[in-house]
């Protein structure tokens, strides 16, 4: 079945939005050929490391060359993404780069703004001789859709780590602060998963707004608990087998894996051509969540009493999933205790 804007919603309704975007990536891309409106992209970098840009370059099916040159949108003659402005990859530098932003992107009828990096207090980051706070504000004011990519742009990331020396924050928080009443689509992770961005862009261009959770993350990518629902090492946990030495094998929970407090599809979607994710070689350290890294640091610390130790309140999070996770941990703890006959397991 070929997807079009008309049957898009039907399919989504039939499958649920989550399953849809998960499974129909190539169809989404195809649907682009029937789209009328071309969306211009401006990619801004604030307090960042450009790891998300590099992650974007790792995209597959479609890969970067296809995204930049081959997947044409409708009859625009232009590809899915050809940023009018992008520091890390654009041919133009200096005044021409700035001019292209003003003349091509700002005047386009449909504008997507992609933000990489946190927004700091004035005086710490400037681009083209202007402070980044000003640059992003001006772009956000005219943008028709705003996507924040990576932990820094979504929730402030490492720059906002204690003591937050530059008063860094995520894009949504900044826009709220300066009175720009727009919803930012948050695609966290450090770095963001290229799939997430490609799919979100395609969905926007087709005319579908992804459903967001309370942190602005598309539920389709960030609606499942890693430990409870997706981690391939979960069976170890259920059997009470834990990795307790760097060269051991088992569930990473006792090393400090943050999986139980993390909502992301990393374990399913993985990185680098869907090859691997952090737990394959070490632990999850929680980069999909607000207030990372502080709430998850030290990374090598077991999260036995997760909700308390990390200062989380299950009701504030508002997701029964955390309750379920905590309950699950208790249940499994008891189950393990029962199987192994060890009392100390109960405290989990």
């Amino acid at each position, binding site marked *: 079945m070929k997807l079009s804007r008309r049957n898009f919603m039907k399919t989504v309704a039939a499958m649920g939005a989550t399953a849809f975007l998960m499974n129909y990536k190539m169809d989404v891309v195809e649907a682009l050929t029937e789209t009328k409106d071309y969306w211009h992209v401006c990619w801004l970098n604030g307090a960042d490391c450009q790891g998300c840009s590099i992650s974007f370059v790792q995209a597959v099916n479609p890969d970067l060359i296809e995204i930049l040159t081959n997947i044409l949108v409708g009859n625009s003659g232009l590809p899915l993404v050809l940023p009018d402005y992008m520091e890390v990859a654009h041919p133009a*530098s200096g005044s021409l780069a700035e001019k292209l932003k003003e003349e091509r992107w700002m005047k386009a009828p449909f504008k997507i703004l992609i933000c990489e990096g946190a927004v700091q207090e004035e005086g710490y980051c400037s681009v083209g001789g202007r402070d980044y706070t000003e640059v992003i504000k001006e772009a956000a004011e005219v943008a028709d859709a705003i996507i924040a990519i990576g932990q820094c742009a979504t929730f402030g990331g490492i720059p906002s780590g204690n003591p937050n020396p530059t008063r860094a924050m995520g894009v949504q928080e900044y826009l709220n602060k300066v009175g720009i009443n727009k919803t930012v689509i948050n695609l966290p992770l450090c770095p963001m998963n290229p799939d997430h961005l490609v799919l979100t862009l395609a969905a926007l261009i087709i005319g579908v707004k992804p459903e967001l959770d309370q942190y602005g993350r598309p539920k389709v990518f960030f609606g499942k608990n890693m430990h409870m629902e997706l981690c391939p090492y979960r069976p170890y946990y259920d059997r009470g087998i834990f990795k307790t030495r*760097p060269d051991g094998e088992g569930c990473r929970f006792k090393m400090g894996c943050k999986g139980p407090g993390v909502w992301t599809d990393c374990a399913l979607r993985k990185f680098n051509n869907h090859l691997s994710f952090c737990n394959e070689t070490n632990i999850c350290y929680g980069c999909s969540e607000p207030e990372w890294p502080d709430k998850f640091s030290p990374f090598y610390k077991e999260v036995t009493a997760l909700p308390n130790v990390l200062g989380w309140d299950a009701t504030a999070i508002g997701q029964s999933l955390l309750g379920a996770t905590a309950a699950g941990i208790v249940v499994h703890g008891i189950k393990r205790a029962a199987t192994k006959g060890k009392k100390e397991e109960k405290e989990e």
Partner: protein
Amino acid sequence: MAKVVVDPVTRIEGHLGITMETKEVKTSTGTWTLVDKAYSHTNLFRGFEIILKGRDPRDAYFLTQRICGVCHAVHGAASMQALDHAYGVTPPPAAVLVRNILHACFYCYDHMIHTYLLVGPELGVVAKYPPMVPPALGKAGIAKLGLGSSYAKCVEMQRIANEATALWGGRAPFPVAEYPGGVTVKPTLDRIAGTIGRMNQVWYFAVHTMYNDLMALVERNEHIGNAISTLLDVEFRGLQDLGPSYPYQLSYGLFPDPENYDDWVKAQDGEKSRRKSAVIHAGAWDGDFKPFELGKIKEYVKYSKYSNECTGLHPKDGKTIPDKNKPGAYAWAKAPRYDDKPYEVGPFARMVNTFGLRWKFEVTNPVTGESFTFDWKALNPNSSVIDRVAARVAQTILFSTKAMEWAIELKQYINEKTINEKTANFDYVPNTAEGFGLWDAPRGALLHYTKIKGGKIDNYQCVVPSTWNLGPRDDFDQPGPVEKALENTWLPQLDVPTIANTLYPDADIDASAFGLGMVKWGDALAVALKPLGLAPLNMENGYNTSLALAIVRSFDPCIACAVHEIDITIK
């Protein structure tokens, strides 16, 4: 004198601006504008060291990788080796092999992406070499004009190299698998086979595409030299006269010998060392091989926005007292110097410190048995745009071979220890300790220093490659390497297509597929540039900054690195 400013400089890591003061030179053919003095200003500060303070020392491995998302893994390496050093442990041979494989694959990605996506486009234009120009006309352009063929292939190959990194590191960017005294990843036959299969493809690309592209640049180099010399009536041999800095070249070395790790550690202990048992040697080349000595590094702040009492100190004792309005200061970065001299760091420095000025080595692909001899005589002993590119090509060939060799070697170690017994317990963190990590990032020599007190980070310092290369003038008024390299660069008052037509006046490009007949190189470029609004590419204030940008990019600047360390004391 005019002032030419480029801000932002794109296709580098981070936020960089450069300011160039010009001078006029009169020759028999006219009056030409050259760069007289150059100043680089770095435009982002995040405050990493402040954020690290008080955390679990092992968190630094994860967090410092985010200093730079392009050259992430190397910060992990330097950070982990600082921890090894502080813990007083050495990783067992199997762990050294795993680390070497992970970083060799990472290096191939980094050098490839720099060569094609970042510095390559300007070189492709000046050398009239379509494969290195971005594929602006898509698949049709690649098929009909070869426009961007290598560029497009590189996108695929860097991805494959990153997959190999991810096999060992969990993912790339930001691998996670190193631990003090070893690694947390298991060597498996699956990972070994996956690495060899992928790096075999990278090897083929490095030997048969990257090397050929380098040779294509060399082949056109004499013409470039002649054409510009004739036009300007100055002596200009070609790309080797573009962007030379100093004869001083600093390297910390790369890839320790798994069976001789003690030799590697000597440099961290402060002993004079060349780390000759490693694949890339440490050293402080000054026209001849000199051993590296940690104690000879000092940082100067005469032109940096810090109080003068911060000047002339070893990074370990470094002070950072900001003085925003200090008269004459123009940079946030300090000026690191070795033995009080400005040293360039990076791919060229690694090659001369290992091979001297002639880089000749033979590699054999362990999968196919195909042999290849790389042979390059440095065209400019003070380094140059073309020499830096050649060094990256050489290292991609060398490291992709090594990655496969180490993966094969690792098979013998598959059941051996991958962690030092002292650190095998996750609860163990030393109470009081300090350590240095010395590694080379793709951009050059990288130092991490960690000081642990009460089991937490008390002080963390990094001296990073882009501070060496892009730092400002020092207390002796010596310009930093990039500032030096920009001096005397030609700033043509002609746009890119016009220059291309001047350098290559023959109409020998068949653009019939795009509705044109035979056209000149510059006119073909204009076809690609105009629809994207890029016709005035690199023009600033009437001056064409293409050559200057190629010089800056040839250093592979990483600004996030260079300014990560501005340690604004908040009390």
